[in-house]
């Protein structure tokens, strides 16, 4: 029985790996799987290695893909910019331009994410057996196929019904909830930031930039818009001040927030999709203005 089972498994592996190699299967099923897929596409060179890369947190995840189609968005939900920098460094990629989100610099890197991507055994297996990569999972691809087929049927999903998207639905949720969330964010954004920790993190960014080998003038720091009540609290202020000292404006590039626009967020931190389009356009234009290409 054990031998037969293993034989069946091997057969399935061979067949499915062949399908994966021959086709362009790729789908995600959750935020954590999307993080892994984005990273693996770079690590296993499914994406071009010389490019413009954005790294960030879940705030940066909201950036509009279509508007920023020339950029590879390596922002990870629930993770930090250090995870993105680690992926670039370990994949030995030298991007032409690097855009670094600066909002939540105090978040630390995730050991488990690093282990998932770079554990020697799984790394080697995924190199030779593409079917083991996150985006190629047979169950996820099967479900994605079923969902896409079903979406052709009218009125089955909320996304189809409310083309404006999730926001309209969310607006139905009591405003109290949004205020509560903002209050909670206010509390955490007002907490004092440990100087030593901030210093170490900024040092870490500097060291990653050096290891990656990118020109200082090709590094862009940018801030994602937040609810106006959070923008100038203790933490963001301190981060900005220290950032300018560590990475002088005459050596590095900064894309600061536009003074004239107040952005709307869904929870105080994350932009709604319509707002994200506005900011993505702004980010793109600002980048082009500086680089001229």
């Amino acid at each position, binding site marked *: *029985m*054990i031998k*037969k*089972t*293993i*034989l*069946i*498994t091997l*057969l*399935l*592996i061979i067949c*499915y790996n062949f399908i994966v190699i021959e086709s362009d299967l790729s789908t995600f*099923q*959750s*935020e*954590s*799987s999307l993080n*892994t897929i984005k990273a693996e596409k770079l690590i296993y060179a499914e994406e071009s290695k010389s490019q413009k890369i954005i790294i960030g947190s879940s705030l940066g995840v909201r950036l509009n893909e279509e508007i920023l189609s020339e950029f590879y968005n390596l922002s990870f939900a629930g993770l930090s910019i250090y995870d993105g920098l680690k992926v670039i460094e370990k994949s030995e990629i030298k991007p032409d331009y690097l855009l670094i989100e600066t909002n939540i610099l105090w978040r630390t890197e995730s050991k*488990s994410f690093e282990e*998932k991507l770079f*554990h020697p*055994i*799984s790394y080697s297996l995924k190199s030779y057996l593409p*079917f*083991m990569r996150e985006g*190629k*999972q*047979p*169950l*996820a691809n*099967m*479900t994605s196929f*079923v*969902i896409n087929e*079903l*979406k052709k049927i009218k*009125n*089955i*999903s*909320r*996304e*189809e*019904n*409310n083309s404006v998207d*999730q926001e309209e*639905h*969310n607006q*139905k*949720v*009591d405003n109290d*909830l949004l205020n*509560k*969330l903002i209050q909670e964010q206010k509390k955490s954004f007002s907490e004092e930031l440990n100087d030593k920790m901030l210093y170490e993190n900024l040092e870490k960014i500097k060291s990653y930039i050096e290891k990656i080998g990118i020109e200082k003038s090709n590094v862009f720091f940018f801030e994602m818009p937040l609810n106006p009540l959070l923008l100038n609290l203790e933490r963001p202020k301190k981060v900005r001040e220290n950032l300018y000292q560590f990475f002088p404006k005459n050596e590095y590039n900064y894309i600061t927030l536009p003074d004239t626009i107040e952005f709307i967020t869904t929870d105080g931190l994350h932009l709604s999709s319509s707002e994200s389009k506005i900011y993505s356009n702004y980010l793109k234009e600002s980048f082009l203005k500086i680089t001229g290409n």
Partner: protein
Amino acid sequence: MLFNSWIFLLLLTLTLLFYYLPYLRKSQIYILIASSLIFYSYNYLPLVLLLLASAGINIVTSYYVVYKNPKYRKLTAIIGVVSNLFVLGFFKYSGLFARTFLVESGDLSEFLVSIPLPIGISFFTFQGISLSIDVFKENYFKGEEVIPKSFKEHSLKTLFYISFFPQLVAGPIVKAHDFLPQIKTKYLNEIDFELCFKNLVLGYFLKMVVADNLKDFTFWIEYPYFQYYESIDLIMMLFGYSCQIFADFAGYSLIAIGLAGLFGYKLRDNFYFPYVASSFRDFWKRWHISLSSFLMEYLYFPLGGSKKGKFRTYLNLFIVMALGGLWHGAAWSYMVWGFAHGIFLAIERMFFNVLKINSKNFGNVFYSVFIFIMVTFAWLLFKLPEFSHVILYVEAIFENFSFSFDTHLFFHILLYSLPVVVYHAFYLFKTRYQFSFVTRLAYLFYGIMLFLIISSSGSAGEFIYFQF
């Protein structure tokens, strides 16, 4: 160390290799103890001191119960039980005590809240209690039969019993009378590899494919995110969580049983298709069997069980279920969860008594579905330890009513819950119809499961029951 990590695979391989080497046969217990201590202390070395201290208490008390002055047998056994409860209470419930009864800013309060919860403490302290009671009561064996005269030999056996890694951190809770008589030299040709293989494949499949994938979707049950979802999504997430918690814990138990089997030790089944239970009583005979049988044997029966009149029976039920609930975690919501199950059991008992229904022969599809619904709703208390959030969640189910739903969430939960449904359906069909062709094709199902473990595992998460 997680069962689904590469480092564990390495530890297991090396342990098996040394364990069955003919010239190391006499050192089998030493090898397993060493592996178990490495397994337990891998993430945090000082933990091993607590495990050794706990084992030490049980080594001394059980030895004294059997071999020292018979006048003090009972007292020594009581000291053994109380010491285990003290260790459990101190490390697990100090924070809850402080948060509930002490002033928030006091030194004592801050100290108690800061005490870390050592992994697996609820399991190995219960095994210690089982040892003290079993050697004292001698219901299953004479103390001398399982406690060697040599203190050194006894220490080794007890340390092995407490620390055996397959069941160390999340059960199944092993009782002394089940385990101690099994300790002897094991031979490779005695091992039922097929059974171990089946348990391991099914266990890893339930954990890595079902539970680990579902957790990404049931995550949104957390407060305040759930408030953004509509009724169908909320119900679907709850259904998914019900399947996830089963797959997570039953998966862990199956892995533990499979691993123990590789070393020649038989652990009892911990789950027996709980979601097709014909009554609440039946549910508790199928869910976390090692805990419910432990509570039954060492708490419910000593309290008088159902033999001291109706009032005492119901009172005993509430006490056992409430304490069983609190065992799961240091939050009052766990006690409320246990208490809720106590109420379900009591009402069902009354109902069955009035209608003169014999619960053993009772079987009704609608009632089974009702039980599943109630059990599933009760899991909310696990996921949302704040009671007010549980109320908000139930309110949201009614208030956010709409016929539309989140397709992505809905179909993924459906997909990953399906194996749990099929698993239970298979049991139902097996008990009702001739199903020999499925048994003949078992290798096909196990082959597919193994393929999905390799290709479709979710992001590795800790086992839910680790926190208990």
